[in-house]
């Protein structure tokens, strides 16, 4: 294997665009996942058993089945129920729903970590439910929720590589295509691994930084 850097330079625009698609899908999927996950966790907390049980079942199913199968179900099964999606929207939908299931569990644990007395104190002061969520529950659970959220973000980035199987033009798809085109598949896969590695390390460091910042802030405030 003679690594020819010219191959990379020649295809640099494609590699950058593939990286861009991966980053965009990852961040959008994560944000949607956090939003939906938070709503699901909140509904499960306040909605009573009639809401909690079915949502809990859906979360269990999403957490107990491979991401690839979920993607196949939407991508190949969707058209049979009138949901014909292009690879990119399909990938985004799959990634967000998958993320939402895991984030909802993180938020559920976050809700459970806040001492009940604090919520009762808020109720006694006449705060509305929304105020209690915004002023008491969310700030108090932030530090609990952050580490698993960063962890999950890293997992999501890695899962996004699976989207190459349904031909989403992200990093894995792009770089392996370059590899077969240039008869340099092994080099391409090495490059791919290194790019993912760099992004994951950067994300993990950013997460740790946020954790330190948040904990010193909390410490100073208390």
């Amino acid at each position: 294997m003679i690594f020819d850097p010219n191959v990379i330079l020649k295809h640099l625009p494609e590699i950058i665009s593939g990286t861009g698609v991966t980053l965009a899908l990852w961040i959008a999927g994560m944000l949607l996942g956090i939003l939906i996950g938070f709503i699901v966790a909140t509904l499960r907390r306040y909605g009573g058993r009639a809401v909690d049980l079915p949502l809990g079942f859906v979360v269990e199913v999403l957490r107990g089945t491979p991401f690839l199968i979920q993607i196949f179900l939407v991508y190949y099964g969707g058209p049979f129920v009138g949901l014909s999606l292009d690879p990119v929207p399909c990938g985004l939908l799959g990634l967000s729903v998958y993320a939402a299931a895991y984030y909802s569990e993180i938020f559920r644990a976050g809700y459970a970590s806040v001492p009940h007395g604090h919520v009762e104190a808020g109720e006694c002061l006449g705060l509305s439910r929304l105020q209690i969520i915004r002023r008491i529950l969310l700030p108090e659970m932030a530090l609990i929720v952050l580490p698993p959220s960063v962890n999950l973000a890293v997992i999501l980035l890695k899962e996004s590589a699976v989207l190459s199987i349904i031909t989403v033009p992200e990093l894995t798809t792009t770089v392996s295509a370059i590899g077969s085109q240039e008869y340099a598949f092994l080099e391409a896969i090495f490059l791919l691994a290194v790019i993912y590695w760099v992004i994951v390390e950067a994300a993990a460091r950013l997460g740790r930084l946020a954790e330190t910042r948040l904990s010193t802030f909390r410490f100073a405030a208390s």
Partner: protein
Amino acid sequence: MSFKLFSLLVQASVWTIGISAISIAIGFLIALGLSAALLSGKALYRKPAEFFISFFRGVPLLVQLLLIYNLLPFIGLNVPSIVAAIIGMSLCTAAYQAENLRGGFESVPKGLIEAADMVGFSPRQVFVRVKVPIALRLTFPALVNEAIMILKSSSLVSVVGIVEITRMAQDLASSTYMPIEIFSSAALIYLVICWAVALAGRFGERSLPGAAK
């Protein structure tokens, strides 16, 4: 969907379970070595182990599988794709299990080790009779979680051509034009396997020595 199709998926699940179980077992052995290197306190051992763990935790499993699948023939090892798949999954799970084991060994209470020292245990006895049982007990839940993760990740070995549940489902879906039924059935099978492992894990946890009764 006919019973025949469903039974084909169930038969394919033997591969899913087999590959996952073998990978978990090999991964555990590698992880023992890695965690020993991490805890050795010598940079010569620790640094390579850290590098290995960081790499295999930082790169998507799909990319690792493609890498190993293409690397093995390149270095002159023409092995069947099943071997490449098992190597890939074992290395990946080893990185995760090593971190778990390190955490387990680090949380063995110091007092217990000192107590064993006091009653005249040799360092070897302290390791075998005190550290290992407690660390394994502490990391058991994480091991069960990892087993479930690997079961789900094993769907990715379908890309190197192994006909496990996911590949079988793909083949059946394209030949029968019933993707919804087929992929839902595949999902159901994964779900049942994962639940079974979780249940067995909970049962195992309770029957381990030193469990809270």
